[in-house]
């Protein structure tokens, strides 16, 4: 509870920072942007890992296990596919 206010400050500042940074992203890269932010928000993996690792009850371990698998899929495929897409973006000069 004590950390509520600091957390809210962090939330507000991060949201504004996100707006500022992302507003300048070229429309060319909208799809990679979405897959990268998707991979980044799969940081929920760390929370899922704790639930699974604590092994407090079978129920939470199962829920945590599924959550870890789901977030890992997002982390792995999100970063890999963003890179795969970005490798395809080439300028004319480098081609010929």
């Amino acid at each position, binding site marked *: 509870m004590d950390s509520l206010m600091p957390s809210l400050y962090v939330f507000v500042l991060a949201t504004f920072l*996100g707006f500022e*940074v992302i507003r300048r992203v070229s429309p060319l890269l909208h799809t990679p942007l979405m897959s990268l932010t998707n991979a980044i928000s799969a940081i929920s993996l760390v929370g899922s890992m704790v639930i699974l690792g604590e092994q407090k009850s079978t129920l939470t371990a199962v829920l945590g296990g*599924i959550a870890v698998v789901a977030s890992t899929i997002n982390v792995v495929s999100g970063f890999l596919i963003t890179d795969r897409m970005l490798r395809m973006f080439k300028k004319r000069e480098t081609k010929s």
Partner: protein
Amino acid sequence: MSDLFEALFHAAPGAQPLFTQVSYLVAAALFILALKWLSAPGTARRGVIAGEVGMGLAIVGTILLPEIEVYHWIIVAILVGTVIGVPIALLMPMTAVPQRTALSHSFGGLAVGLVGAAKYYLWLGEPGKLPPFIMAVIALEVLLGFLTFTGSLMAFGKLQEILPTRPMVYKGQNIINFALFAIAIVAGIWLTANPRMSILFPLLIALALTFGVLLIIPIGGADMPTVISLLNSYAGLSACAMGFVLDNKLLIIAGALDGSSGFILSVIMCKAMNRSFTNVLFGAFGQVAEAVTGRKEERTVRSASPEEAAQILESASSVVIVPGYGMAVAQAQHRVRELYDLLTRRGVDVKFGIHPVAGRMPGHMNVLLAEADIPYDRLYEMEDINPELPQTDVALIIGANDVTNPAARSDQSSPIYGMPIINVDKARTVMVIKRSMSAGFAGIQNELYYLDKTLMLFGDAKGFVGEMVKELGHAAPAALTPRPPLPKTGEGEKVLAKV
């Protein structure tokens, strides 16, 4: 020395080792840098690396937490996720990018929802662990997480065409949706006041799951760019809520970045269609349009064969290609590249004009054209290409429809009136590759097709472009062959007649 080691890697239960704290902090900074670097093509790949390093640090830092007692299950689960995730990323065709994105939003939502549920049941058994604020955030986390889960699954189904892409509407739909959402909110507030009313918790989950389905059912294929962005935003916000529940600032930051990114994209998409959020979510586009299609009359269009079309392109000095979802469906991007190469080699200036909502997700066309090796400095945004179109010889439209319909500028009764379009009708000649004369997604006739300067090229995008490529490839260098007379086309400066 051993004291330092002790402080770095060990901590009392409930506290974080120094290494974990620092790794979370550095990860947060790296995530911000990742997005910053992603904003320009030159530095974008560096952004991915920054994100990966940040994620790696966060995972290592988490492994060191004293709460974690069992490691083998974590390793197993991560391995399973990796084994599923790697093939998805490496083998999936680029045309399926929108589907994959929808699916990963749903996985993200699921993970967050499950963690919220696990935390609730864990803390339910421990007195004093569910103060109102925490309970409220858990309710929000579960609501957003599960709603994103089923909503994104529905979006996936529509994009994969397992489900009908047309909007599904029924009477009183909005009232039912609002009622359901209101019940979910009430259940959440009730739980906040009485966290021990554990019967309400499964109800909340069930409501969130149902609401996610109902929210996406009435939304049609062409609105997918906005919806995917919005679901992206929800996925981020739910991760954020999880950060509040677990008191983890890294989660809050990463979630907020994702949330604001999705929000910005959906605003851009809405603006590009001249529609509001509420209209996209509750409007069911196809419905509105039906009334207008009533006045149908027999009108003639001019069509041309691949040979004729190839000759017109060859003799042009500037060509603007406007791709749309039809190009993605036909997987025609590689043929389009061949066409681009042949024309460029003959000295034709070929550019691509890309509407922000072309395709099924933001930036869809750019990725497909990049996949086909078309240099990205040939891809022009709508605002940049429109001033050039009056001086353009040929505008070639491949699988796009509503985003080129001049009625959006001139016909106040049109459902798409006011939507910014690519002004292909200003080009000297317009060529449209289309399978038939059927109306576009919005169900509206496109006046463009009946202009004097317009030539309809009937056929499948891939097949037709392939034929043109064959024609251009066979012909000897342009200078040596006498050119057959061109079909007469309209005068370039003629402004669009009132329709």
